[in-house]
């Protein structure tokens, strides 16, 4: 039985058409693969849109281009297309691994790169039925007064769970191309997520991500790993992307970014302190310290924050070791 609110569905085929439609329908939202938005609409999460703009047929949002060390991926590219692209697998193995690890195979056919970058933040007090949320007097993210995860907090702690953002964030010059009613702009990927679960994207309501770009330093070895409750389908409890440069026996560059822990993708700071020498136990201990201080997993899942912070550290150490050893 259908319980969805009434809306008008439009299917433009170019960015110019998208912008014109968005200008005429201020209450509209963008629909990509639907694996995040339709679930939320069905649960009555967020204000019901007066119109949906289906962006899956927009030509400019398709296609992957690889030019040496430069990569550009259209936001409408499906996760499966990204994961299967031989140029991405060869040149950007960490990104390909992140894509391959998203949800299950059917979701990857449907879900898009733009959708994963803009994935709504998640929390056990938010991703629930209307009835459940009403019984708990809603929460800060939608309709309520307090954050049930951190009742004294004035910001929402719902967790960011996208896998592509961290895998892109460890590359150089990661940027998103954004289009809105007023025009186009480019935003560093680092600025796309605000860290406040209530308004988690630094986009205006009329803006959408058209493509993402990044550059790979030639010697950077990249990888991705995560833990989930059910390995074949679930959102990450913790996920980590790593980039390592090794010269002889020395670690000369180390980059790490996490998902599934904080309200935004977390680029780990202070990793340069580990570089310059071999990757030894003292270095690994220092890495654990950085993770403990910066990864701030709250109880937004059925698994405790303490466990997820610990798992993030274990995943990071394993992945860095594997990339450094080149196995």
């Amino acid at each position, binding site marked *: 039985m*259908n319980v969805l*609110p009434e809306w008008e569905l439009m299917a433009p085929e170019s960015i110019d058409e998208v912008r014109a439609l968005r200008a005429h329908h201020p209450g509209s939202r963008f629909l990509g693969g639907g694996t995040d938005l*339709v*679930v939320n609409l*069905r649960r009555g999460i967020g204000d019901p849109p007066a119109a949906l703009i289906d962006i899956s047929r927009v030509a400019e949002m398709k296609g992957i281009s690889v030019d040496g060390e430069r990569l550009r991926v259209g936001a409408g590219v499906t996760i499966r297309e990204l994961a299967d692209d031989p140029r991405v697998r060869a040149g950007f193995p960490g990104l390909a691994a992140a894509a391959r690890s998203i*949800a*299950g195979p*059917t979701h990857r*056919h449907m879900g898009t790169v733009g959708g994963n970058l803009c994935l709504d933040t998640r929390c056990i007090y938010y991703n629930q039925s209307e009835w459940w949320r009403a019984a708990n007097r809603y929460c800060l993210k939608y309709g309520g007064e307090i954050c049930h995860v951190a009742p004294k907090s004035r910001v929402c702690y719902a967790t960011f769970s996208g896998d592509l953002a961290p895998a892109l964030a460890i590359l150089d010059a990661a940027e998103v191309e954004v289009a809105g009613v007023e025009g186009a702009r480019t935003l560093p990927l680092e600025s796309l997520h605000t860290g406040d679960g209530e308004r988690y994207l630094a986009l205006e309501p009329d803006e959408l991500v058209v493509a993402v770009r990044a550059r790979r330093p030639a010697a950077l070895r990249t990888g991705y790993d995560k833990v989930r409750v059910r390995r*074949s389908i679930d959102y990450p409890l913790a996920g980590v992307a790593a980039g390592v440069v090794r010269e002889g026996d020395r670690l000369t560059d180390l980059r790490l970014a996490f998902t599934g822990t904080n309200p935004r993708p977390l680029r780990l700071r202070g990793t340069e302190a580990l570089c310059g020498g071999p990757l030894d136990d003292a270095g690994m201990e220092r890495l654990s310290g950085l993770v403990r201080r910066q990864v701030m997993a709250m109880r937004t899942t059925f698994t405790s924050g303490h466990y997820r912070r610990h798992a993030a550290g274990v995943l990071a150490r394993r992945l860095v070791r594997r990339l450094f050893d080149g196995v």
Partner: protein
Amino acid sequence: MIRLLTYRLNGRERTDAVPDNVLLLDHLRETVGLTGTKTGCDGGECGACTVLVDGAPVLSCLTLSATVAGRSVETVESLAEGGRLAFIQEGFHRKLGSQCGYCTPGLIMASEALLRQDPDPSEDAIREALGSNICRCTGYVKIIEAVRWAAESSAARSGSPAEPAR
């Protein structure tokens, strides 16, 4: 808003009047009357509603009907021909890949998509391709055997030397 939706369903083109807010799952079951596709979790987590759109497995509970305009939709009802089960259906029957049966149409359509791409899938490939589908009865072992049986039987019929393991 209600519009005329023209698409191909199980090989036949048809046009239905469909409101913009109706999910493909509800359209198939309630307007078209094809109830083989099942409503499971209603949130994209279980795969019981899996159908093929342009040959790729899709969760019909998260797909708005209007988005399949001009596309080809296939449901579990498309598989049997002239009353004869397709190999993938017979595999689920012979290998006991189906117990309560509720997840079966979704698993069969996800398997069908896999076999079209990879007619001789390894166990790992089968596990990977069925990762979006949940079964609470079988423990999956018999489902994997069912898909292997279908692959071997269809290879045997098309004249390849592999014999079906019965």
